[in-house]
């Protein structure tokens, strides 16, 4: 024992003192002069750079600098504004969308943006015999967000027309996100299978090279059409720094200019430091608890309400998100279409919960298994901690809960196959529309075993009718009304309990200007500049 102690004293102590003592020492920082290259660091690398075939945040964040769609979200909002299309019209019945393309735009390889070129990016996803329908690609968003598109055709040189089989009010939003970004048809022909490693679009930066798991390098597009948002740096690098503390260190030393993916606890010290700017805003996500309605213990609405009332969501937000988020009252992010003006959130009432549960001996008889993922997700940066909090809340009202943590893929697999009792999970929105939350959670069509996203197995004809009605409705006031009805049904039946909305967080050097967090969560680095000296 003594020898162990001595070892500790001889090695750890001096090193720890060095570490501690040094925190007061002034670090060597690179000068704050305007760099030629803007470097942004994140925890993992992009997987693919073909906008039609990506789904991870890192790929989307990279491709968003290189490619653009016909329309886009006005920076920092959920408002649609023209992008590569100068203007657009939607027919009265919502079945025809007409886009008038901007004149004089060229892809990075020099290909002119014409209606013909624009069609290519859609036809390659729709038509399996199209040469751009690469066999390795999944085009998984096409059948998921764009399934109403029946035909895309050109009318003249510069007009693209979408014909729909039935109206879908969220389609315009979907056309503003990455699967609908336009790529150069010539580049796809040149690179073929390798296109996903040589993306060519119209964006502010153009692709230069990619060293996997290290960095993706882009350079300025000098001919960028959007003069107001023209790129300010010669090069843009998306660097991979897997370890959080090292990413922070790189930001501190000035080797990188912006980072994301920090743990909430690491933010406190940065917020008061004038060298950095912390950007934070509610993300488009919800972390929630889902019941398995096929489990007889959860068939009673009363029991579901009692469990929901037993959880202090505000306390959970504080503990699980360290203040970088908020308690969720609805299964949609705050401010989304359908959010009731006069709400009726689930109250926190453990007393009442205990009373209700006392009348249901079956739920008190055996332990309930709460299943959770072991890896962090945006909506739960520390999922196991969140689960532990929920367990302690539920045990206060007399339930016995065991936690089962699984790696994310295994967890997802059990949920999709309804092999769970209580599950902690979340959803990150794709296109900023309410349909993309409520249909996912409550649509009876989303209960196919193995492919489900309605993990609760909630089936209600009335709900289905409202959901489909709101999807087809083009009048926003009527959609609001329909979604309010959906939420009223949810509030009555409570197949899931929304818990938290976490914030999107990016930290940059304070010299950076023009950065704004986007609601959709994608990164927009085109307008970013360096403050005037």
């Amino acid at each position, binding site marked *: 024992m003594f020898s162990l102690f001595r*070892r500790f004293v001889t090695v750890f102590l001096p090193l720890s003192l060095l570490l501690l003592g*040094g925190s007061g020492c002034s670090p060597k920082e690179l000068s704050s002069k305007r760099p030629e290259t803007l*470097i942004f660091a994140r925890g993992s690398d992009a997987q693919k750079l073909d906008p039609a075939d990506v789904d991870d945040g890192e790929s989307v964040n990279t491709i968003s600098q290189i490619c653009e769609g016909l329309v886009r979200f006005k920076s920092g909002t959920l408002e649609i504004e023209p992008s590569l299309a100068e203007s657009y019209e939607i027919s009265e019945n919502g079945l025809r969308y007409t886009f008038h393309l901007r004149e004089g735009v060229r892809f990075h390889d020099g290909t002119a943006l014409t209606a013909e070129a624009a069609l290519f990016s859609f036809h390659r996803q729709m038509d399996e015999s199209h040469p751009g329908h690469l066999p390795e690609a*999944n085009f998984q968003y096409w059948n998921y967000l764009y399934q109403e598109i029946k035909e895309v055709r050109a009318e003249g040189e510069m007009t693209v027309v979408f014909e729909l089989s039935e109206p879908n009010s969220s389609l315009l939003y979907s056309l503003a996100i990455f699967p609908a970004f336009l790529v150069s048809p010539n580049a796809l022909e040149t690179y073929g299978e390798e296109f*996903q490693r040589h993306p060519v679009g119209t964006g502010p930066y153009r692709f230069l090279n990619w060293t996997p798991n290290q960095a993706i390098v882009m350079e300025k597009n000098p001919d960028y059409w959007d003069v107001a948002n023209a790129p300010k740096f010669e090069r843009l690098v998306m660097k991979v720094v897997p*370890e959080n503390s090292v990413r922070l*260190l790189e930001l501190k*030393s000035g080797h990188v200019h912006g980072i994301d993916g920090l743990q909430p606890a690491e933010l406190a010290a940065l917020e008061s430091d004038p060298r950095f700017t912390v950007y934070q805003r509610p993300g488009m996500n919800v972390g929630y608890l889902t019941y398995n309605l096929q489990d007889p213990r959860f068939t009673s609405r009363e029991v579901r309400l009692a469990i929901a009332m037993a959880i202090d969501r505000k306390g959970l937000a504080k503990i699980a998100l360290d203040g970088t988020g908020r308690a969720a009252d609805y299964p949609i992010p705050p401010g989304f279409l359908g959010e009731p003006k006069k709400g009726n959130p689930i109250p926190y009432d453990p007393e009442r919960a205990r009373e209700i549960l006392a009348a249901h001996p079956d739920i008190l008889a055996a332990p309930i298994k709460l299943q959770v993922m072991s890896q962090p997700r945006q909506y739960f940066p520390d999922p196991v901690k969140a689960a532990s909090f929920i367990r302690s809340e539920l045990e206060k009202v007399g339930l016995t809960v065991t936690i089962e943590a699984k790696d994310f893929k295994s967890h997802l*697999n059990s949920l*999709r196959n309804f092999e769970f009792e209580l599950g902690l999970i979340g959803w990150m929105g794709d296109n900023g529309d309410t349909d993309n939350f409520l249909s996912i959670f409550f649509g009876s069509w989303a209960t196919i075993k193995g492919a489900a996203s309605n993990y609760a197995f909630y089936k209600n004809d009335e709900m289905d009718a409202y959901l489909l009605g709101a999807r087809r409705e083009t009048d926003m006031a009527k959609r609001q009304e329909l979604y309010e009805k959906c939420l009223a049904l949810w509030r009555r039946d409570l197949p899931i309990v929304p818990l938290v909305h976490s914030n999107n967080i990016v930290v940059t050097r304070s010299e950076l200007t023009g950065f704004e967090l986007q609601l959709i969560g994608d990164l927009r680095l085109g307008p970013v500049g360096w403050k005037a000296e």
Partner: protein
Amino acid sequence: MNAEHLIRFLKGVGRKLALFVTIYLIASMALFMAIRAIPGDPIALRLKNPDPVRVAKERERLGLDKPVMTQYVLYGKSFWTGDWGRSLLSGRKVREDVAQFFPATLELSLAGLSLGIIIGVLTAVFAEGFRSQWLKRFSFFLGTLGLTVPIFWIGLLALIVGSLWLGWFPSGGRFDLSMVPPPNVTGSLLIDSLLAGQWEKFWAAVNHLVLPAICLSLYPAAQVCSVLQARLQDPKIEILKRALKARGFGPARIWFRHLLKVGSAPVVTVIGTSFGALLGGAVLTETVFSWPGIGRYMVAAVLDRDLYVVQNVLLLVILLVVGVVFITDFLAHVINPVATKSEEDQ
């Protein structure tokens, strides 16, 4: 070498080969079964909207609808022909990925290992040779540091000191992002930049290698040092030392030509096992130093159920480590047949 020796030698080689084949069979079957036994279809789990028709089509394209035995045979065939398929996630060819990531890990591991051997041998020899209390303390310090301090902790410390405070070294990564890498010949940036005669790039690569290599060297240094020290403290060595001294040899010659040779057989074995440990622990070093190596690649592949990457790359690394251990065993035997003989006769 007489006939009896030759036969014994061939027998030894044959035994190792048989063991190698057995390990291959067990490892490949284990990997093949494991990736399929984890609940959840890797194809469906990759899709956001996994409708069954789509999943079935994809499984057919990848040959996952074939009987399990056929799949296993095809797996063996594709592994040995080097046709390792594509990553389900990135769509890149697994072989290209290996060609990209493996040299990075190998370069770092070899740098760490060589540095470790040098530090370990010098410390042991000087501590024993000069009987210096300070050196003995240093070797004790080194042993504790190398064997007990976790690499991610010491790595972070090295980055704080070497990069943040002193500003001498980059804070991770393998190469300067503002430079164009040297033309790829061997995959090692050091060798490639030398071959191209590009000194600036060579120094950039060295600069990036210093901190992670030092951190990685601690474990083998501690191992080599303790094994060698124990060996040098053997009373028989003391007799040998006196005999050499009596012949009038100087200390440098005694230590580095004679005693080191006698003492090095177990050290070679230690190097073999250290190499395995280095590859196994690569993911930690690679994570701390943002090193684009095979460790991070494999861990990500396992978590993402990236079937072909797990199947082929893990097997490759397993066989490689086994191969290196066998080769170092063999070398230890060549250097000092006596030390390993009794074990072989069993």
